[in-house]
């Protein structure tokens, strides 16, 4: 029941024109099914298990079973999101909702959070969940040996410093902070490093990690390194009663879930068509034709695609040239072409699917060629070449660059493509060594986190894109302000300032595409992309 809050790109029925291809893909599917059924590994996971088994394809196996560990990859986050829970959880509009805490009180000075915990919740090993477990989990993650990547959020470096965690009774836990923080709760829900509430049975008697024993709807049952992870429904899961939304609300596990590592996307598609897997992430250029056996779910994402401009470059330091670049191209048209109509132009760093998105955020650049001419002339642009860096690994970044280069040239701005290998591009991004760059940020769960990574002092940190002290001060001013409307106001202001400064051209939020077999019911998408398998059934 995932209805995105704000208007989103309509769900499209996708089709291909060539009927021949549909016909041949069916035959490929049959051949593939024959091939794969005769070639299944002897471990027997293809044999029908007692419970139905949902199979989800991941590109590479998880590298650890501990949430937030330094070794983690995206699939670690995805798998564990079904296994562990925190005090709070994110809804699909990325707002904070209760999870293991039913409610909480914040002291007037903002420095004390009192959480009232749920009753009757059990861990996967059957032991009851109490406030002592919250304290234990927090202490475990904050130990340097645990390898938790987000200690900075709680020790004062990137967030408030937690002075003490106290447990007045088994269902109340109190966090004392050194200063008010608007993001204290949000940080707990960070997909890469959730503040998971774990049982101490997750570690052995020496404190070394064993496996995640959490409170989530699924139990971490089996892990064959390099191949798959198997989750089983937690029979004693106590679901919340609110409507499911994002990772919050009611969760009812219905089937086993197996995360299967299949490195190649085309191989995943083939596996889905032959019934070996049921659901997978898919990119726009690999979509199969419409078929009664599967469908594609398109939903909004929260990862902004942008064209960056190096404001320290001698040529681009002139805001008139940057502004000219922003006005030279039909941005909605480019977004439409690049995303195949599945995303729309969003000029703001705040994703349009988020609760914080406002009408002010929707104000973008409108193509204005006469103004471009005027600006270029005023800046004294004499046709110098600008390099636009991109890579081949992410087709959207490449397509965007190809279109932008061509359209900029048509508008009189001499842009030249420079295609580099992705690793090199990341290096150039982090060192600021580029002029124009077609790039895509990964999602942040709150606009302040995105603005925080984008704003900064370029002379100290070459990775930041927007060097504006006033904007930085404005962002810092809401560090302790939790009131959503006040924050919205500030984000709107920041957006306006960014539109004036033109440090980059934000284009759209990469949509989330999922290819699902019609045997599954209840699969939904949300901007953070993590697959949730509670509430999903399989025939």
């Amino acid at each position: 029941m995932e209805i995105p809050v704000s208007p989103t790109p309509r769900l499209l029925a996708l089709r291909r024109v060539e009927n021949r291809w549909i016909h041949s893909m069916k035959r490929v599917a049959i051949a593939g099914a024959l091939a794969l059924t005769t070639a299944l590994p002897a471990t027997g996971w293809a044999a029908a298990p007692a419970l139905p088994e949902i199979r989800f394809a991941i590109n590479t196996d998880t590298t650890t079973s501990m949430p937030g560990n330094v070794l983690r990859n995206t699939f670690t986050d995805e798998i564990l999101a079904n296994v562990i829970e925190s005090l709070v959880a994110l809804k699909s509009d990325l707002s904070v909702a209760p999870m293991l805490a039913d409610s909480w009180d914040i002291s007037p000075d903002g420095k004390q959070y009192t959480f009232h915990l749920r009753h009757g919740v059990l861990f996967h090993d059957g032991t009851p969940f109490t406030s002592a477990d919250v304290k234990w989990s927090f202490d475990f993650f904050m130990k340097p040996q645990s390898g938790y990547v987000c200690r900075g959020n709680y020790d004062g470096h990137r967030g408030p410093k937690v002075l003490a965690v106290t447990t007045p009774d088994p269902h109340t836990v109190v966090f004392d902070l050194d200063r008010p923080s608007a993001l204290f709760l949000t940080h707990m829900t960070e997909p890469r490093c959730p503040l998971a509430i774990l049982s101490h049975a997750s570690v052995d008697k020496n404190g070394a990690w064993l496996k995640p024993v959490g409170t989530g709807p699924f139990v971490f049952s089996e892990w064959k390194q390099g191949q798959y992870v198997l989750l089983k429904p937690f029979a004693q899961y106590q679901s919340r009663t609110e409507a499911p939304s994002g990772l919050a609300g009611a969760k009812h596990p219905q089937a086993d879930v197996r995360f299967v590592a299949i490195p190649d996307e085309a191989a995943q598609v083939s596996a889905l068509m032959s019934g070996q897997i049921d659901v997978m992430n898919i990119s726009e250029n690999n979509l199969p034709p419409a078929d009664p056996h599967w469908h594609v779910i398109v939903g909004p994402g929260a990862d902004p695609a942008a064209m960056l401009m190096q404001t320290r470059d001698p040529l681009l330091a002139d805001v008139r040239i940057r502004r000219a670049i922003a006005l030279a191209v039909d941005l909605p048209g480019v977004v439409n072409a690049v995303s195949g109509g599945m995303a729309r132009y969003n000029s703001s760093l705040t994703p349009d699917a988020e609760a914080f998105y406002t009408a002010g955020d929707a104000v973008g650049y409108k193509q204005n060629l006469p103004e471009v001419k005027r600006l270029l002339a005023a800046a004294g642009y004499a046709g110098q070449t600008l390099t636009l860096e991109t890579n081949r690994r992410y087709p959207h970044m490449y397509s965007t660059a190809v279109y932008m280069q061509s359209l900029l040239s048509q508008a009189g701005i001499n842009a030249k493509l420079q295609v580099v290998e992705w690793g090199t591009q990341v290096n150039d991004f982090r060192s600021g060594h580029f002029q124009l760059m077609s790039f895509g940020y990964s999602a942040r769960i709150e606009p302040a986190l995105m603005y925080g990574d984008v704003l900064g002092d370029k002379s100290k940190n070459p990775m930041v894109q927007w060097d504006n002290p006033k904007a930085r001060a404005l962002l810092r001013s809401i560090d302790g302000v939790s009131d959503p409307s006040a924050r919205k106001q500030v984000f709107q202001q920041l957006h306006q300032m960014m539109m004036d400064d033109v440090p980059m051209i934000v284009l759209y939020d990469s949509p989330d595409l999922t290819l699902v077999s019609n045997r599954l019911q209840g699969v939904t998408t949300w901007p953070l992309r993590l697959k949730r398998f509670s509430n999903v059934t399989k025939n």
Partner: protein
Amino acid sequence: MLSYIIKRLSMAVPTVFIVTLLVFGMIRAIPGDPASLMLGDLNDPALLQQMRHSFGLDQSIPAQFVIWVSHLLSGDFGMSIVRHQPVLELIRETFPVTAEIVLAATFLACVIAIPAGLFAAWMQNRRGDLAVVMGSIMLVSIPSFWAGILLIWLFGVKLHLLPTFGYQPFSQAGWASLKYLVLPVIAVTLGEIAVVTRMMRASSIEVLRLEYIAHARAKGLSERRVLLRHTLPNAFGPTLTVIGLVLGHLLAGGAVIETVFTLPGMGRLLVESIYSRDYPVVQGCLLVIALLYVLTNLVVDLLYPIFDPRLKL
């Protein structure tokens, strides 16, 4: 014989050492490191430090080299940074795939090329010879990756006879696994046939010109006997060297074919690890390839005298 082997092996040691040095330096010369690549656009210097420390990247390069070599000597190839699996395990999983294709292709190529080369030498400068020579020049001109793509198109997309990608090991799927090998092996064999044919032909011509062949013919031996009993074994020697070269070359060039057919082989592991800056894996793979090269050459050198009694060890 033994002293020869020892001598050759000891000559290989400095070679391998130089290779390890080269490998180590080269991969680190590539801009970017695995930690910052994994971090991507996240602006967290403390986390970057933490990751670099856990991957052992915060030490000086000479120190890293010494650590790597000392682990190597005890058989530990290190741990993949991206996959967090032992490098040796990854190589053990992927190398058989590459080897299967290379060996099958080489075997197939020899089965076709050796008779073809012999035949061409026997029919020298007549139509049969010209056909073989022209055919082999044509084959060697076809890039294996183009042949691979066209084979996929023809047999996979149009005719639906064979799978277009993927792999199943023999141990798991038995004879059914062979259908994943057919197209890649054909693509690789095409080029190989040409090289082996030409060498076989050239050395057969040399042998056929020798006096004792004329002598054998004068004695009244059948042509077949002359060819199979007298020509083939003697012409095979130089051809063996070429086969060794080809084998070594293929082990390295696996990357291209494995990319086309999406095979989980060592070549593809190597290329992907270069892209993700997975230093330990790159170092391990290149080391293994260099060792194989040296080993193959050694084996070929040792087998050569069997076919050429003029050589004494």
